[in-house]
């Protein structure tokens, strides 16, 4: 199976010849050799000793640990345990470090120090079995490991797949941004909810009512909030152009500051700093539901013409959207996380679903950086789809190499 996958990998795709993956495979096959069953085992005394005892540096860690592996011998009494002992230079006195149950086969000694040379031994101990002198507490012959040292490693081989994915992904995104910045045209398809933005603001202008923009309740360390602030910039430019009043109530203090800066910048860039008031972007409170209650009450009192609910929302989504609905406002919602989307879909006029939120900021701003990244994400999706299709074809022929190598640890 493994060899099949290897040869196939060499044929199918040059990508698989990446040295990292090759080294991963090598490690896998070496370890497979290392634990291959021995041909003969010596005749067991009363208690059979453990088998295939190997001590080596645990790969892919920050040092100070030794990985021990072994096989339990057959025919042990049920209560028998395996005792692991260690000897250190220069004295080489054996001391117990752990006694483990049967069936584990593996122990990591994380009390080891780097560069020190150790030897380990493992023996079977059984309290119930009498030893040669007839006293309970028999101990098997010890099995000794080769000398071993722990070391500090540079790479976690088991994460090669995710490393390759990350590097590839970062490369694609930065490459696409560069491509867009070089002035070449990038197409972004129409997103239904977005054309409604100007329509909604236009309507607010006509009837002389406010536009509410609620940027979710998460902080600026959440990516959806950052996307929302980008869209807020666009909305604020439109309200500045039309001279419509804008109200941005905030739950998170950091989001609040960024939102205020974004709105201020938008009014400046439209040449209407006179229309900008500091309290357009205001801070309500930090608690999710106190915030929700205050904003819903404000919606009912002020009856805005348009409400934007874009960002990361939790349970408050439905209260806000349902209250907004009852005031008769046009509502445009957007969230990348799927949890609250059903409520937005059910109560809002337009909803940006999932990744549309990120694409929307690109579509609205037409900024090369955003357009480029949107394209980069599409390329990544294309690669994933292709990988998926190839994976399904291979899996249908009984080869799960791709699916196996998508597992992360």
């Amino acid at each position, binding site marked *: 199976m493994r060899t099949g996958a290897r040869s196939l990998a060499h044929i199918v795709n040059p990508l698989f010849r990446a040295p990292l993956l090759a080294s991963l495979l090598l490690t896998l096959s070496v370890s497979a050799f290392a634990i291959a069953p021995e041909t003969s085992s010596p005749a067991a005394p009363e208690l059979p000793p453990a088998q295939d005892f190997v001590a080596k540096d645990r790969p892919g860690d*920050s040092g*100070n640990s030794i990985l021990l592996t072994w096989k339990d011998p057959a025919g042990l009494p049920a209560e028998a345990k395996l005792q692991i002992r260690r000897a250190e230079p220069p004295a080489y006195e054996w001391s117990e470090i752990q006694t483990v149950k049967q069936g584990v086969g593996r122990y990591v000694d994380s009390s080891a120090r780097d560069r020190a040379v150790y030897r380990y031994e493992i023996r079977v101990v059984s309290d119930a079995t009498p030893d040669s002198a007839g006293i309970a507490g028999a101990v098997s012959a010890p099995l000794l490991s080769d000398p071993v040292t722990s070391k500090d490693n540079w790479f976690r081989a088991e994460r090669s797949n995710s490393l390759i994915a990350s590097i590839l992904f970062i490369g694609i995104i930065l490459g696409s941004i560069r491509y867009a910045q070089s002035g070449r045209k990038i197409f972004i398809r129409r997103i239904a909810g977005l054309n409604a933005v100007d329509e909604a603001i236009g309507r607010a202008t006509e009837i002389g009512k406010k536009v509410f923009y609620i940027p979710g309740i998460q902080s600026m360390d959440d990516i959806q909030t950052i996307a929302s602030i980008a869209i807020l910039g666009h909305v604020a430019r439109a309200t500045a152009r039309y001279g419509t009043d804008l109200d941005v109530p905030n739950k998170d*203090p950091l989001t609040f500051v*960024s939102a205020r800066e974004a709105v201020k910048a938008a009014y400046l860039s439209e040449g209407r700093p006179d229309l900008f008031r500091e309290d357009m972007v205001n801070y309500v409170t930090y608690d999710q539901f106190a915030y929700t209650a205050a904003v819903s009450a404000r919606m009912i009192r002020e009856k805005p013409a348009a409400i934007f609910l874009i960002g990361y929302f939790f349970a408050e989504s*439905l209260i806000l959207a349902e209250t907004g*609905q009852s005031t008769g406002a046009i509502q445009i919602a957007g969230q990348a996380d799927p949890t609250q989307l059903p409520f937005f879909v059910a109560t809002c006029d337009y909803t940006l679903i999932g990744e549309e939120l*990120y694409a929307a900021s690109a579509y609205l701003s037409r900024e090369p950086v955003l357009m480029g990244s949107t394209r980069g994400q599409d390329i990544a999706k294309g690669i994933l789809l292709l990988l998926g299709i190839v994976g399904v074809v291979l899996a249908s022929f009984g080869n799960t190499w791709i699916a196996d190598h998508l597992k992360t640890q």
Partner: protein
Amino acid sequence: MNLEFGRVALVVLFGILPIIGIAMGLRAPSLRSRIPIFIGIFAGFIPIVALYVPKAFLSGETGMSSRLDLWLIILAAFALLLGIVNVVQNSSRKIGRREKGWPYAVVLLTGLAVTGSFGIYGAVTGHGIGFMPDGSSTPFKWVEDRFFQPLQSTIFSLLAFFMASASFRAFRARNAEASILLVAAGLVMMGRVPLLEFLAAPIPPLHAAAASASQFLGKLTEWIMDTPNGAAQSGIIIGAALGAASMAIRVILGIERGYLGLGKGE
């Protein structure tokens, strides 16, 4: 003094470098955003690189990444309290100017002052904010149990009502998509609870049929949740994760700097 590499490197990157940056920023306003963005690149890439590089100076127990985790726990605590200043500013302004609804601002500040000082009292006396050594509640926990918990849970429970009115109004079979939404919602609502058994309760001959239909609906619901719902959720998760990862790269590299209140350029 513990002068392990991890600590010293962090102090240089996120302590000394900012001090130099602030000093330079006093003179040259153009550096006021450039240096923070430069420093941010390190803060962002350390956890990413540490995912793949286990080398002790980076990911070991005393390495940079692990130590940075502890730092950022502290910074997150400070960030959590950031909003209080805004609330106090807003409310005291409201009270000072006797704006409409100012008595509510008094209520707010009182709640903040009382609960907050109970919290400070707990920290200063070392009683904490849970139970006293004799098992009784601390004043902080008393306020929490009697005021905070009922208020929060009741406001949340308003959702049940909104849920009902939203489903009444929004679930109309306007078009194909809306009809799918409606049917899926209806099936799941019937499959999650013994609804048919409840309806059949007054009519004994229907009990057995209702029970087996209910079983079937339960299995169907599980299938819907597992397969079509699971597939759609996977699709959304993959797409959104790519979007989020690309945004993360842009933020870390300083291409996206809206979070600092900066537009494109400077």
